[in-house]
């Protein structure tokens, strides 16, 4: 294999891993707090449409990113308000959020179907770092860098002592309440962070990954990210590994062409979902055996 193919593959893997990483980081935080938000796909798509439309109107990348983050947070508050105040079923509420979010995105983006915007430019490395591999790893647009910074931030947060309050909310909200913590506030903040991350992932899809509007821009990434977090048993390191594995399935086609195999594009398109199931199967049982990796005890349970 020549060096340019490897370069292209590394770039492609990082690009398709980024939205999953961002979504996963948000899901990790909200699930650690005991909130299961299945509305990821809806928030992701709304984030994408918000940034796409803002980009068309203003032409400014930072404003578009902020719009996506705001959209994600607004939608996550639509989820968390009934869940925390009216104790609605989290599975059903999340599902409703996905249906609502996909509808809003389709409605808002409808007049712009097929329109394109100029994608976010990559930040070029200085001249002396011209090795193709290094460039493939490091030369990306700012949202990719942002995802790395947030991943590091979340890792440090989960190691800090203040994360124990968050984790207490996920395992034993009553105990956390007795200890004087405002569980509702903490869970709400964790969910809002999840919404912000889903919005940011949407911004990445619309501004950089596929800068052409289609209402199916999410392509199930919200659901894959939810599975990925189970796979990662809510650990950032494992999430990163999972995102890279999933990113690789996206470039399967490239790889198969390189070794001279051809395969139906429809079957290839189904491969990330197959890999997701395989990953769930391989790790679900093991995670339940190791107490450190077990899922938060009151995940998805109403706190009455």
């Amino acid at each position, binding site marked *: 294999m020549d060096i340019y193919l490897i370069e292209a593959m590394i770039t492609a893997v990082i690009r398709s891993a980024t939205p999953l990483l961002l979504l996963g980081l948000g899901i990790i935080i909200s699930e650690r707090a005991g909130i299961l938000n299945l509305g990821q796909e809806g928030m992701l798509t709304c984030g994408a449409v918000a940034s796409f439309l803002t980009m068309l109107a203003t032409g400014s990348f930072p404003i578009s990113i902020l719009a996506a983050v705001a959209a994600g947070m607004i939608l996550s508050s639509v989820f968390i308000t009934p869940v925390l105040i009216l104790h609605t079923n989290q599975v059903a509420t999340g599902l*409703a959020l996905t249906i609502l979010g996909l509808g809003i995105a389709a409605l808002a983006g409808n007049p712009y179907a097929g329109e394109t915007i100029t994608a976010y430019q990559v930040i070029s490395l200085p001249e002396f770092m011209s090795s193709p591999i290094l460039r493939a790893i490091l030369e990306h647009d700012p949202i990719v860098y942002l995802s790395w910074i947030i991943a590091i931030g979340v890792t440090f947060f989960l190691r800090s002592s203040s994360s124990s309050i968050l984790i207490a909310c996920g395992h034993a909200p009553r105990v956390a309440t007795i200890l004087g913590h405002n569980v509702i506030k903490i869970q709400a903040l964790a969910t809002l962070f999840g919404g912000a991350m889903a919005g940011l992932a949407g911004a990445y899809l619309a501004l950089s990954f596929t800068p052409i509007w289609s209402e199916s821009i999410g392509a199930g990434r919200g659901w894959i990210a939810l599975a990925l977090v189970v796979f990662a048993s809510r650990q950032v390191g494992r999430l990163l590994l999972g995102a890279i594995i999933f990113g690789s399935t996206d470039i399967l086609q490239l790889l198969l062409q390189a070794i001279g195999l051809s395969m139906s594009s429809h079957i290839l398109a189904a491969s990330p979902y197959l890999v997701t199931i395989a990953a769930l199967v391989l790790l679900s049982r093991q995670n339940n055996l190791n107490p450190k990796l077990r899922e938060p005890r009151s995940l998805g349970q109403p706190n009455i």
Partner: protein
Amino acid sequence: MFIRRRRIAPSLAWQFLSPPLAITLALATGYLFLTLQDLPAQAILLDFLISPLSDFYSLVEIIGKATPLLICALGLSICYRAKIWNIGAEGQFIAGALIGGAVALHLDDWPSWLSLPTICMAGIAAGSSWAGISAWLKVSFKANEVLTTIMLNYISLHLLAWSLSGPLKDPEGFNFPESALFADSVILPSILAEGYLSIGALIALLLTVLLFILNRYSILLFRFQLLGEDESSARFSGLSPKRLTLQAMAISGGLAGLAGIMEIAGPVGQLTMNVNFGFGYAAIIVAFLGRLKPMGMLFASLLMSITYLGAENVQIGFGIPRATTSIFQGALLLYLLATDFFINFEIRIARAQPE
């Protein structure tokens, strides 16, 4: 100051009140949104809800569209009672349509009385097996069924696309991703003298009555509820949670598969990517809106069907995209879940506590 209190017994009144209240709230939200966009909200909402009820052919179409929704929802209700979150009716519907359709394409020289039951059985078997994958992964590997069923939804859609671009593509179809039209002998008969309403509508009604009777007079379905309420009690009464899970998923998938094959061997008449997919997701709303009760789901499926036709009318009349249906549906489900709070809780005005 208001306080909330858990009711001693769930409120029967609120069980009936919350669906109409949720519908009203969803309509009010729609009114607000339309008014904010300077659109004639009243006219649009009237067109959305009333126009589908205005003539005979629309009424037939409402029942036709409600049929697959109802059949899928009946199956889902069994899973949801057992608190098994099967989100995969969509994939099971497609699996039933795909396998049943493939069989139908090969049975065009059989007599109808033999071929129709065969293709329906093929659809049921396909939907059942497709759901069985998730059920098996859940009981033997503890893989979350929400995620596996959704992944299988995407996979089934890609499988359908692959079949229609290769093995099942119509050789004379100008390269469109469609199968050949089904022979008349594998199209379900109509129960109306005028217009087309497939016999599926009758089957859906029979299934609803069957489920109603089983719910009321037999312990068969209560076992699923017991599993959902308290798994250890179920185990203590000698029931096997694993077997119940497999059964619930198999029934649910089988019904979704039946809905799938009856849709394409009925109103659609061929396998195509243009079948109104999304029924499997809408059926989840039908199940919740109908309180998982057969008669409730019957009304809910008709209402959801009206929203589909209404959205089409509004698109033609006012140029409002069809995506509004899913906004309405999503908002409806959210409001319903929120108003369900009052079934188990009441809000009281707290009296001043004596010091």
